[in-house]
């Protein structure tokens, strides 16, 4: 199960036995897929919190006596 690294040089690793384009394209797509689906909801949350804060400030201004 724990095999030795089958490459003898870094160039060989990049070359992937001649399938460099296919292997690295898939891993690039995989990284894009991870970034979009992990950072997307985080960014959306920040936008949402800003929007809700803005609304809370507006509501406070409209009813100053009910703010506490």
């Amino acid at each position, binding site marked *: 199960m724990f095999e030795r*690294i*089958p490459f003898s040089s870094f160039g060989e690793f990049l070359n*992937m036995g001649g399938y460099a384009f*296919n292997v690295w394209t*898939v891993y690039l797509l*995989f990284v894009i897929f991870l970034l979009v689906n*992990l950072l997307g909801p985080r960014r959306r949350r920040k936008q*949402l*919190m800003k929007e809700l804060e803005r*609304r809370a400030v507006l509501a406070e201004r409209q009813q100053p006596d009910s703010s506490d």
Partner: protein
Amino acid sequence: MWQWFHRWGSPKWFYDLSGRWLPWLTGALILFLVVGVVWALLFVPQDYQQSYTTRILVVHVAVASTSLAFFPIMAVAGTITLVWKMKMADMVAKTVAPLGAWFSALTLASGSIWGSVMWGTWWEWSDSRLTSMLFQFFLLISVISLRSALNDSETAAKACAVLSIVGCVNVVIIKYSVEWWNTLHQPASALSMNSGSANGPAFWVPTLVMVIAMYLLMAVHVMMATRNEILRRESRSQWVQDLVLAAK
């Protein structure tokens, strides 16, 4: 049991609980991803026929097998929405669908890139596995557009629930397509414990690590997106307003 069920139905309870779970799940996700990717790229041995393209399959198999979980999850959530009208279930169903579309798209793309060198073709319309997976992608796009097309959120929830339950039929077709019709896509490999075998643990252990990473990714994404949906839908409730003021 009922108390447990009711608690899960409370958006605030879900929000608090997921807030406590997210750091742990994210940590586990990063751990499994790093181990999975490093193992796949560096240590998976060269196959005598496929050379190093087996590195593509570690990602492809993990993403593809996880993609089959989306319709069953949406169907369970949809059934809960239809029977008990639980708001939380519909929020989860809504956030799961776009992620499922991403999983299906990556399955198709990675499979195609692998097939282009190993099968000599990017796409084969007569192959049942390929076409049924493409159909799943289109079904998920339909669920997403159905929700955005219907203005009334209750009608949209019901319509999406029905479509999700019907969509499960396709999951069964995808799963057994390679056994029912024998065209291009190979059936699942029989796992072998023998490390000398072409299907040995050197291939399937890193794949299993990646499958776990993909389910963790699903959990983390769905929790984050559902929390956003809770904030949006419950923005008028007191606890959300308190939360916003506390964060300011």
